[in-house]
């Protein structure tokens, strides 16, 4: 480390009702990989948005190589040499890679030169990518490479990466880390945001830990145990979910030969999916986002019509049944997208309780809604799952992501499902609440329900599931017992590194 690139002192930013950053100070050295660590809602995103000029701090200051630095807009930050790869990609599906890159540039060169440049950068940094492919056809890992290359073309001094590995397979993570190490060797600093501790221990030189908007500690990750860092993040000792029951019973849900065209042009086609879940079993389905998770959930919940005999519940064909008929049988689901899919943003929690609870909780008679009963069902969810909200009259969109997640999962769990399908049950939820949700799923399985957990969090799947399978481009891998599965094997099940071959073919052509 030679000197200090960016020095942050006393940054504070408050939003109505919440202080996102409270007097945060730390330094990022030149050619340093600096980790910013914290739970969801700890204020990591707000902090980097201030560095990138998207949000203005209420007070505090920054220094860039010793000079005062207060970017009024992202353009100013980019000019100084800050580049950022966002967690959610801002790419146009219908455009080519090179066109997408050109859109993000101040003065894009001619397309042919740009394609050439993209090839050069992608080869130099070991990020295989063909500039002529359409973004809609790329995997999440490849899309991220588009974003990274877009940043690298600006020759940044500081590269900010927000949760970059959440969409990658273990093999793709290795490629990314090799690239980041190379950048670091060339003198670029990296601000790396994550809550995955093992990654940070492997990659980062220094870590700053945020909790509730405050800087609660710094450490050298290589010299600190993951548990110590986790406890700094949470501010408390962690509780590990306990499982009570290991026995499994009869086959509850059998899926055989399920193939399905997606309803939107950039969706994933499900290809010949087979699996069986038994009573008392938790089946974990891993895989990088966008490999058929949403489509599989929609097929199992009954939102889209499925080919006959593809789905059987206790031997009975349910493939042609609509969501409510499946609910009557006890097949319930909780989709990933909380606002707009699992819940209606502008409707109250009571109304959202009715959204899936009408059938099994007997909330209607002759079509007329029993609002008092619906409200007490909503209240029951709120108390049982510790949803932090003033009451059931509050609109769903007013809840924080984690609290709404508890509500959405709780709503299905409390309906005593026989089969429960959840997609990303703990996405965006703090560690304590995530543990509570996982415990609820384990308890439900212990009571004899069959549970399918679709998740991108491999640690979560390893912790709670009995069997594991991975979705890759709409295909489901062989289902294997979780016990004794190595991270390499899981990576291969997830499809290894996406697009390696494709990029080489492109480069030779």
């Amino acid at each position, binding site marked *: 480390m030679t000197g200090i690139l960016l020095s942050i002192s006393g940054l504070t930013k408050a939003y109505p009702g919440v202080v996102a950053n409270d007097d945060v100070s730390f330094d990022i050295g030149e050619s340093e990989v600096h980790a910013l660590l914290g739970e969801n809602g700890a204020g990591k995103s707000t902090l980097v948005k201030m560095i990138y000029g998207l949000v203005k701090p209420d007070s505090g200051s920054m220094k860039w190589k010793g000079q005062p630095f207060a970017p009024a807009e992202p353009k100013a930050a980019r000019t100084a040499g800050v580049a950022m790869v966002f967690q959610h990609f801002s790419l146009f599906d219908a455009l080519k890679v090179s066109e997408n890159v050109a859109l993000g540039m101040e003065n894009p060169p001619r397309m042919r030169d740009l394609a050439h440049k993209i090839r050069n950068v992608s080869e130099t940094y070991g990020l295989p990518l063909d500039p002529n492919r359409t973004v809609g056809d790329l995997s999440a890992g490849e899309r991220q490479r588009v974003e990274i290359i877009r940043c690298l073309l600006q020759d940044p001094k500081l590269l900010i990466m927000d949760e970059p590995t959440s969409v990658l397979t273990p093999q793709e993570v290795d490629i990314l880390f090799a690239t980041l190490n190379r950048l670091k060797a060339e003198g670029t600093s990296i601000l790396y945001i994550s809550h995955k501790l093992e990654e940070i221990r492997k990659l980062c030189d220094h870590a700053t830990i945020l909790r509730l908007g405050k800087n609660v500690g710094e450490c050298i990750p290589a010299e600190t145990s993951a548990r110590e860092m986790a406890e700094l993040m949470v501010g408390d000792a962690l509780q590990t979910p306990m499982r009570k029951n290991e026995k499994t019973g009869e086959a509850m849900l059998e899926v055989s030969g399920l193939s399905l065209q997606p309803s939107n042009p950039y969706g994933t086609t499900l290809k010949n999916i087979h699996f069986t879940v038994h009573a008392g079993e938790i089946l974990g389905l891993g895989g990088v986002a966008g490999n058929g998770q949403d489509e599989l959930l929609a097929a199992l919940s009954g939102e889209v019509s499925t080919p006959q005999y593809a789905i059987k519940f206790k031997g009975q064909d349910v493939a042609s049944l609509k969501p409510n008929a499946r609910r009557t049988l006890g097949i319930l*689901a909780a989709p990933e997208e909380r606002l707009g*899919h699992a819940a*209606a943003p502008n409707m109250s929690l009571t*109304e959202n309780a*009715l*959204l899936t609870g*009408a059938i099994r909780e007997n909330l209607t008679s002759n079509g*007329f*809604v029993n609002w008092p009963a619906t409200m007490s069902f909503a209240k029951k969810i709120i108390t049982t799952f510790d949803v932090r909200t003033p009451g059931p009259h509050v609109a769903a969109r007013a809840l924080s992501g984690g609290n709404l997640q508890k509500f959405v999962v709780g709503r299905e769990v409390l309906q005593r499902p026989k089969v429960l399908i959840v997609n990303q049950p703990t996405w965006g939820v703090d560690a304590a609440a995530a543990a509570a949700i996982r415990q609820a799923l384990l308890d439900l399985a212990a009571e004899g329900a069959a549970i399918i957990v679709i998740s991108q969090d491999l640690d979560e799947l390893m912790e709670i599931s009995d069997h594991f399978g991975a979705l890759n481009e709409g295909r489901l891998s062989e289902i294997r017992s979780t016990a004794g599965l190595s991270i390499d094997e899981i990576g291969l099940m997830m499809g290894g590194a996406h697009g390696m071959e494709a990029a080489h073919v492109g480069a030779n052509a």
Partner: protein
Amino acid sequence: MITLEKRPMPSRLLSIATPVIAVVITMIAGGLLFYALGKSPFEAIRTIFWDPIFGEFAFYYRPQLLVKGAPLILIAIGLSLGFKAGIWNIGAEGQYIIGGICGAGIGLAFYPLNSFLVFPLMILAGAFGGWAWAMIPALLKVKFNTNEILVSLMLVYVAEQVLASMSLGLLKNPEGHGFPGSRNFNDYPSGNSWINEAAGLHWGMAFAFIAVIFAYVLLNRHILGFNIRLTGEASRAARFSGVNPTRLILFCLGSSGALAGLAGLFEISGPSGQVSIDFNVGYGFTAIIVAFLGRLHPIGILLAGLLMALTYIGGEIAQGNLGLPSAAIQVFQGMLLFFLLALDLLTNYRVKVAVKGVT
């Protein structure tokens, strides 16, 4: 700098207050418009809003309020169901015409039979006509995913041609000395929608009240109403919840068509009296404003319908007494919708005025 900040919850107070504020701002902006036209703004506003209810000739205008309000409310209630679900029936005017023609056709077929059954049959035929006309965009949408806004709107012009053909051909009064237009229902007691003509009360107002109550119960107490609201709020969540979008489209367009058809029938067999080329006067379009002015809420629509009727009648008085051009009155009504939609933003967002320079 002024910025908008999303509210965590929609403001209940503002959602009730904005229509009132919109009316007040419309009065001010409209006053300026009338002033620019060389009229006294205060007199013009008084003529439009005050004279019809409390003025010298109020005894004549007050019944008119019901006569004009009834079709507006009836149509707007139907439209509001679809609008809540994000299904945009813009062609209520066409359904209104076809409902009127069908109902009148049945009535004329029985002429001069005197029976208490004639009018109920006409009501059924009117509702059926409007429903069937609305089924065209509905089925096209369901089968081919066509845009119901365009199809329903274009069908208005088809309906107008049908109306012209009917009043010149099939339904023309055989004793009308060759004049266009059908027999007058005011001369046919069995096929007449008046309950009390002097008070301006006809069956349309009665049905409008029933529709208001029915819609209120449907939206607030029934799962179908919940599904309608849910579809409008979040269509993916509705699908997840188990709402069948096809059935919902058919229901919403069908019921709004049937109500518009009823409005047409009551109009043709009462205030208008006959099938004639100029039978439709734009109730189907004005009802769109009424639906939004009433916040798509049944009670709100009842009040908004009466208010809109007031601007119609007041506008006519202003044209007659003050010589205001009819276009100015239409601009005035348009302003009302404009300000309402603009202020709508405030229920979901709050305005923050940041002092310039603090960055």
